[in-house]
């Protein structure tokens, strides 16, 4: 296993004055890998990722990105440190065109405009559909196209680690396959990926590592193949399987 690009340890987070939703979670993502977080609804998967990208300030614990402690950085600073993020919903600016969304995704993180065109061409290579519709309002896109745009925007500033919150949720089967292909292609181009997925099998096929999150804690952290081949995958996913037998990493 190569050096981790992201290390999370003893992380605690929650909303407002409410109790902890993330209760001491710890795991790591290897450089160049795809890791997938699974877990039941309400386990805190989205909350975990929001606290990683700085939308929620962690209450305790540390987040290390590329060897640097980034725990207390706010969202803009985390983005500049190389963290990309595609939220589960509300992930594009609906009142802007596709082109404006892409420009915006680049200019405030890169803080220059020289590389804008190259970045845009790179994203158009992965999502050719976007190129034909650059002048269209993002609010008029279908769910699948909007998801592609959100993904493309996150890639604009060339992040070193990309966090995806259920990239295939609500997509038709054709788009689901396309989305996982895109995830794989982006990863092969050198971007490490941490994603949340409910399409567990499709996700594990392209992942190196599975992270099972239940009730705000990491219940298992294992090679994706072991997860797929586990005799009681359902119990594992729900967090009720015997973790020692599942062999955590």
């Amino acid at each position, binding site marked *: 296993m190569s050096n981790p690009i992201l290390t999370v340890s003893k992380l605690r987070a929650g909303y407002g004055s409410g109790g902890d939703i993330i209760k001491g979670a710890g795991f790591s993502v290897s450089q160049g890998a795809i890791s997938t977080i699974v877990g039941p609804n309400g386990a805190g998967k989205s909350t975990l990722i929001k606290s990683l990208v700085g939308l929620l300030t962690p209450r305790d614990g540390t987040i290390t990105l590329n060897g640097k402690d980034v725990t207390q950085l706010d969202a803009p600073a985390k*983005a500049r440190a190389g963290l990309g993020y595609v939220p589960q919903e509300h992930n594009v600016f609906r009142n802007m065109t596709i082109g404006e969304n892409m420009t915006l995704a680049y200019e405030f*993180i890169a803080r220059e405009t020289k590389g804008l065109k190259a970045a845009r061409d790179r994203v158009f290579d992965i999502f050719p559909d976007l190129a034909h519709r650059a002048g269209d309002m993002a609010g008029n896109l279908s769910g699948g196209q909007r998801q592609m745009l959100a993904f493309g925007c996150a890639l604009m500033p060339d992040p070193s680690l990309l966090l995806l919150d259920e990239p295939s949720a609500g997509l038709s089967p054709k788009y689901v396959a396309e989305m996982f292909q895109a995830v794989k292609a982006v990863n092969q181009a050198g971007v490490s990926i941490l994603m949340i997925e409910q399409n567990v099998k499709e996700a594990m096929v392209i992942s190196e590592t599975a992270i099972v999150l239940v009730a705000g804690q990491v219940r298992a952290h294992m090679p994706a193949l072991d997860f797929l081949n586990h005799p009681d995958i359902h119990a594992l996913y729900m967090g009720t399987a015997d973790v020692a037998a599942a062999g955590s990493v």
Partner: protein
Amino acid sequence: MLQLLLNGVVSGLLVALPAIALSLTYGVLNFPNFAIGSMITMGAYIALFFNVDIGVPLLLAAGLGAVGLACVALIADRLVYRPLRNSDHVTLLVASMGVYFVLENVVRFLWGSDIRGYDIAVARPHRWLGLRVNNEQITILIVALLAMVAVWFILMKTPLGRAMRAVSDNPDLAGVRGINRNRVIGAVWGISGVLAGFAGVLVGMDGVIDPLMGWNYVLPVFAAVILGGIGNPFGAVIGAILIGVAEELSTLILPTTYRQAVAFLIIVLVLLLRPHGLFGKARISR
């Protein structure tokens, strides 16, 4: 009739500048800034200070008034609105009422309560196609149009404008995109200070300068913003012109003392019939 229409458009343009300002701050900060009224007053007085007390030409004094008011808006943000950033909009609305009264009383304290006027030559109105147009109206037309074009350009064509639209649509996503919300808010206060400052000078040129001058604009400005669709600055311009024309035309059937009631009536009607304004929710913050 045509004369009333022209007067209505011009007085609508007077309302348009603060309406844009109100709409911009609403979009980004998510509360209606009631203090817009006394911001107009204060802008007029800062320019008055430079124009009459120091003796610089009105154009330059207006610019200084606008810059001065932008500073006032930034200070108010720092002292009042920023500590309340995550409060609900009722709290912020009430805070802005507080700012309203503080600014109005600063004006009274510094400059007294007498009626004043700018140092400008009084000229005969021009006649054109049977219409009477005075120099003040021409100035209002030019300044308001320039300001609107400038706001449109900033909003639609610059990185700052994209950031403003982004924060007003989805602050979390804007943060993820590397946009610093407080900086954008600062810029929006600066721009709305400049707009309210110019509006104050134009209102002062058109009528008189006294500490209550901005108060008369609160209702029409809110009516314009509600009519145009809250948080939509371009809708606010249309709303403002419609209000101006409606007020002017109302004088055909109502005594002029009821002018103010027209704006109020429009607010009530819009809220009852089309709560999202003429231009609907879909276009908010464009």
